[in-house]
């Protein structure tokens, strides 16, 4: 499957890349081929900062089950608005 579908969300925060921390400005979320994970499809998230170039990126590839568990854990961890 090659979905082309991508959710994009503006974010504020920091991510730790290969070299150092950097401010992240955008996250893309898509269920598609992983680069590294041993699964045919994964939930992929890229935290990006386009102004700093393509290498300013923190990437994760999660199985569908673990992505759902993570999403619930994030929501459970956040204080109410």
């Amino acid at each position, binding site marked *: *499957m*090659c979905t*082309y579908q991508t959710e*994009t969300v503006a974010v504020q925060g920091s991510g730790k890349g290969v070299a150092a921390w950097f401010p992240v400005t955008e996250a893309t979320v898509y269920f598609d*081929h992983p680069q590294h994970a041993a699964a*045919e499809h994964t939930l992929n998230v890229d935290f990006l900062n386009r102004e700093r*170039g*393509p290498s300013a990126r923190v990437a994760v590839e999660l199985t569908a089950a673990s992505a759902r568990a993570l999403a619930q854990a994030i929501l459970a961890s956040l204080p109410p608005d």
Partner: protein
Amino acid sequence: MPHVADALTAQTIRIAGHGGDGIDAYLAQPLGEGPFGGVVVIHHMPGWDRWSKEVTRTFAAAGYLAICPNLHSRAGKGASPEDAAAATRAAGGVPDDQLVGDVDAAARHLRSLPSSNGKLGVIGYCSGGRQSFLAACRLPFDAAVDCYGAGVTGSPPSQAPVSFVPLIGLAPNLSCPLVGLFGAEDRFPSPEHVAELDGELTRLGKTHEFHSYEGAGHGFFAVDRPSYRVEAALEGWARIWEWYGRYLSS
């Protein structure tokens, strides 16, 4: 696999792509005077990666001039294939016109080589399968291969980038014989998508052959991914050698 020569040379070169943009391209050539047919290899959505270059060398080892343009070159010089692919995706993907321009530049480079016999094929995997069909409809080729390209028929997904539109309307312009290689368990393209394209090409009288492999889904050629299916891949490669042998020979 045809075997012409053990010796080949492979390297990254710089070509003027769409709009005159400088882009990287991986060029692999069998050594010898030729004349050789040529193949433009369109890489998959995960990027201009090691496997894509391996495929390009495989064509050279079989006696074809082969070139794989880096469709993500504009993401930034020196970026890793993975980062360039992610940046390109975040920016909305590769626009169709840009793809055609880059493939045209790669094709012209192959034709300019002294050992070229003037005949050219195109092949693409995953998103490159769709782009192979696109290129074969908008550029002159002698043979084309679509490996599980989604989005030629059917409706685009709701969040698809603007550049992503179905290509079925271009089918009357298909410039060359097409072989399609698909996984029967793929959902994108689904067997229904494949059947729709098959029917339209038949209606138009376009020379084509479609093969769908049981037990295989999307990406069955990719040897470095869990989607690899050895039987489908070996059968698929046999169809590729047969197709190019028939249409790209001197």
